[in-house]
C-alpha cells in the first residue's frame, strides 16, 4: 500500500485481484494521502498504474505523488547494514529470493503486496531487491521501524518529473455525462492487459517431463513475469463525475442546474451507473494481476448505494472526521497530529475457509508532516486533567503577575474551580475513575 501502518492493518497488504474501497472523510481529505502512497508505491516498484479522476491535480502526478524518503539516507549506512546482515533474523522468507551475485540488477521489482494470512492462488510473490537496499530494509526491521513491506515517502516533497520518467503511470479524466462509461472502458482495457494469459491446453494436457511440457515452460520463462498493475479510481460518485469537463464555468453551472432540475431520477441514474462501474471493475479485477483502490464519498450517496458498495469490494476502510473540539480529540495523546479516524469495515478473505472478522479497532490517522501514521486509538485518562491543571497554573500565574489583592483572591478561586472541574473530568468517568466529589453518582455512559 505504500504505507507500512496500513499494510499492517490489512494484514500484510492488499492482495492482487482485490478491490479496496475507501469511504472518504469529507473534511480532512486523508483519502488523497492514502492514494498518494498507493500510487507512489506502484511507481517505485515499476508497476503499471492507472489513475481515473474527475479532476486531476493541476501539476499532474509529478506534483501530487510524494518523493521517496529513503533516497535521503547516506551511503555509509550500507556498509553497516551489510555487516549486520548475517545476524539479522527476518520473519518473512526473503532470504531465499536474494540473488547473492554482486552483478544483480539495481532496478527494484518489488511486487504490489505481500500475501495476507489467507493467501489466494493469485497472490504476488515476494520480490528480489538489491543487497544494500534489502540490508537497509532488514536493518529497519531489526530496529523495529517496520519498513519491511514498502518504501518510505516524504509527503512534503513531490516526486518530480525526473522520477516519473519511464514510469507506466497513466492519468485519465472522467467527468461529464459519459464519465462512468469512459471509466469502465479505460479500466476494462487496463485490467484486461493485466489478465494472465491462459495456459496452452496442449501443454496443460501434456505429461509432466514430456517435450511439450518442457517447451511450454521455456516459453513461459522467456515471456518473463506477468505484469502487475494498480488501478486508482478517485472519488467515484462525487459531483465532479456528474458535471462537465470544465470548458467554462457557465457550462458547469448549466449542467449543475439541469441536474438539480432533474432531481432524484438523475441521482438514481448516476448511482446505478456507479454501481455498475464498480461491479465491472471487481469482476475484471478478480481475474487480473492488479490491485484496485476506489474511493467514494459515501456521505453523498443514498443509503442503498452506500450499503451495497462495500459488498462489491474485498476490503473496506472508513475514514471519519475528527474535530478539534470533540471529546476524543481532547483525550488522545498528541492531539495536534490527529487528523482523522480510520476504521476497518471489511477485510479480504480470499482463499480462506471461513469469514474474516474485523477486530472493530478504531485507528487514528496522524499527519506527522512528512508522513502519515496510523495508530490504535488510545485514550489518555489523565490528558484532560493535565490540561485543566496547566490551564489553572497559567491562570494563576497571570493573575499573580497582573494584579494584586482582590485579583489574586479571584485567581485562587478560579484555580479551585478548575481543580473541581478536573475532578469531574470525562476521562476519569470514562475510565471508571472515582466519582466526582459532591457530584452524586453519575451513570457511566458506555
Amino acid at each position, binding site marked *: 500500500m505504500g504505507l507500512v501502518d496500513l499494510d499492517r492493518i490489512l494484514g500484510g497488504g492488499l492482495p492482487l485481484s482485490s478491490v479496496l474501497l475507501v469511504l472518504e472523510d469529507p473534511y480532512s481529505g486523508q483519502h488523497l494521502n492514502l492514494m498518494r502512497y498507493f500510487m507512489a508505491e506502484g511507481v517505485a516498484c515499476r508497476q503499471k498504474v492507472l489513475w481515473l479522476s474527475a479532476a486531476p491535480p493541476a501539476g499532474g502526478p509529478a506534483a501530487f505523488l510524494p518523493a521517496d524518503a529513503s533516497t535521503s539516507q547516506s551511503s555509509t549506512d550500507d556498509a553497516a547494514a551489510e555487516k549486520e546482515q548475517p545476524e539479522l533474523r527476518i520473519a518473512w522468507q526473503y532470504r531465499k529470493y536474494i540473488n547473492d551475485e554482486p552483478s544483480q540488477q539495481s532496478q527494484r521489482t518489488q511486487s504490489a503486496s505481500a500475501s495476507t494470512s489467507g493467501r489466494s492462488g493469485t497472490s504476488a510473490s515476494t520480490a528480489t531487491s538489491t543487497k544494500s537496499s534489502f540490508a537497509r530494509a532488514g536493518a529497519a526491521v531489526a530496529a523495529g521501524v517496520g519498513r519491511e513491506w514498502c518504501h518510505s515517502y516524504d509527503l512534503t516533497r513531490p516526486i518530480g518529473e525526473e522520477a516519473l520518467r519511464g514510469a507506466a503511470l497513466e492519468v485519465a479524466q472522467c467527468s461529464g*455525462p459519459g464519465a462512468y462509461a469512459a471509466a469502465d472502458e479505460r479500466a476494462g482495457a487496463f485490467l484486461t492487459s493485466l489478465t494472465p494469459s491462459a495456459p496452452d491446453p496442449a501443454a496443460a494436457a501434456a505429461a509432466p517431463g514430456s517435450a511439450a511440457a518442457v517447451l511450454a515452460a521455456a516459453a513461459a520463462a522467456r515471456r518473463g513475469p506477468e505484469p502487475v498493475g494498480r488501478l486508482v479510481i478517485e472519488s467515484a460518485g462525487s459531483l465532479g463525475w456528474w458535471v462537465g469537463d470544465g470548458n467554462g464555468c457557465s457550462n458547469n453551472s448549466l449542467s449543475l442546474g439541469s441536474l438539480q432540475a*432533474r432531481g432524484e431520477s438523475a441521482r438514481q441514474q448516476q448511482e446505478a451507473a456507479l*454501481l*455498475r462501474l464498480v461491479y465491472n471493475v471487481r469482476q475484471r479485477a478478480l481475474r487480473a494481476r492488479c490491485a484496485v483502490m476506489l474511493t467514494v464519498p459515501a456521505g453523498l450517496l443514498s443509503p442503498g448505494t452506500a450499503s451495497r458498495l462495500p*459488498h462489491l469490494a474485498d476490503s473496506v476502510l472508513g475514514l471519519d472526521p475528527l474535530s478539534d473540539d470533540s471529546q476524543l480529540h481532547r483525550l488522545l495523546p498528541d492531539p495536534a497530529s490527529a487528523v482523522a479516524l480510520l476504521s476497518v469495515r471489511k477485510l479480504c478473505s480470499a482463499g480462506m475457509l471461513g*469469514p474474516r472478522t474485523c477486530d472493530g479497532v478504531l485507528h487514528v490517522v496522524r499527519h506527522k508532516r512528512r508522513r502519515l501514521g496510523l495508530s490504535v486509538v488510545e485514550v489518555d485518562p489523565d490528558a484532560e486533567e493535565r490540561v485543566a491543571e496547566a490551564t489553572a497554573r497559567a491562570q494563576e500565574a497571570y493573575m499573580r503577575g497582573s494584579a494584586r489583592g482582590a485579583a489574586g483572591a479571584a485567581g485562587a478561586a478560579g484555580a479551585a474551580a478548575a481543580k473541581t472541574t478536573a475532578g469531574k473530568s470525562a476521562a476519569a468517568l470514562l475510565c471508571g475513575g472515582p466519582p466526582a466529589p459532591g457530584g452524586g453518582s453519575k451513570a457511566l455512559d458506555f
Partner: protein
Amino acid sequence: MSGPLEDEFGLLAGCSLNSGGLTLVKGSLQLSGLFLVQHYVKVLLQRNYAVVLVTAEQVLDRFQYTAKKMGVSLPQYQQSGHLFHVEAPLAVVGGGTGHDADQAPAAAAAAASRSSSRLQQLIAAVQQAATQRAPSAAGVALVIDSLTVLAGMCPGRAEWTAFLHYCCSGVLGASAGGEGVAAPAQHEQVPYCFVAGAYGDVPDDRPWLASLEHRANMVVTVGPLPGGKMADVDGQVTFMQRFGRPPSGAGPRLSGQAAHGAAALAAASAAALPLQLRQSLYFRSTELAVKWMAAVTSRELL
C-alpha cells in the same frame, strides 16, 4: 474433533437439500455467508448432485482453493460432468444524465434493457450447463454465491424478479439430461435445489429478499454472537427450516432442545408439512478448517 461433530453442518444442510427448493444463506458485512455457500457446494457434490455454480462474488479459482482445503477436488467433478461453472456477466455501464431531460429516462431504459438481456444470457448459460450434466447425477443444483453482488448490475425490477422466479421454480430440474438419457425420460423432473447467498443489510434489496425468505425451505443466517465477540468463537449460524419433510428419527445428533425438537418432528407424518426446525451452530474458522460446535462449553473451547 471427532467425525460426527464435524458433520453437524452437513446433517443440517442435508435437511434442506432433502426437501429441495430454495436454501437462502444470509450474511452481513460484519460476517459474510460465502463460506457457507462453499460448504453447500461440497455437500451437494458429495450427494452426487450436478451443480451449476454461478460466481459473482468470487472466482472459480478461489472456490477450488477452498474446496481443496475441504478435501474436495472441483476439477475432478468438472471432468465427470457434476460441476459446471458460469461466470456472472458484466454490467452495461450506460451514459450519464445527458443534456436533455427527455434523454435521461430513455438512457436509463436502454441500460436496463441491456442489463435484462445480460440476465437472459445468464439464464441461457445456466440452462445449457444443466443439460450437459452427467446422467448419473442424482439431481440438479443451482448455486449462486451472492445475489447481492449480482444485483449490482442494477437490472430492472421486473427482470430481476423474473430471474429470481426462474431460479426458484425448478425449471432446471425438468431440463433435458445429458447424453445417454433415453428420449422419453428427457423431461422427467429430477430433484432440484437452489442455494443462494445474499446480504441482508442492503435496504434496496429488502423487498426481493423478503420474498425469497418467504419462499425458501431453509433460511441460514450467519452473524456475530449476540453477546459480543468471543476469543474462540467467530460467529453463529442459525438454520430455520420452514417447509419440507421433517428429519428422520435417527436424524442429526444435535444437543439439547434441538434433539427434543427433532424427536417431535420424527413423530409427525412423513409427508411434507410446514414444520419449523430452528437450530444454531457456533463456528470457529481457522486456516485449514471450520470447526462447528452445537454448544459452547469448556470441552469445545479446550
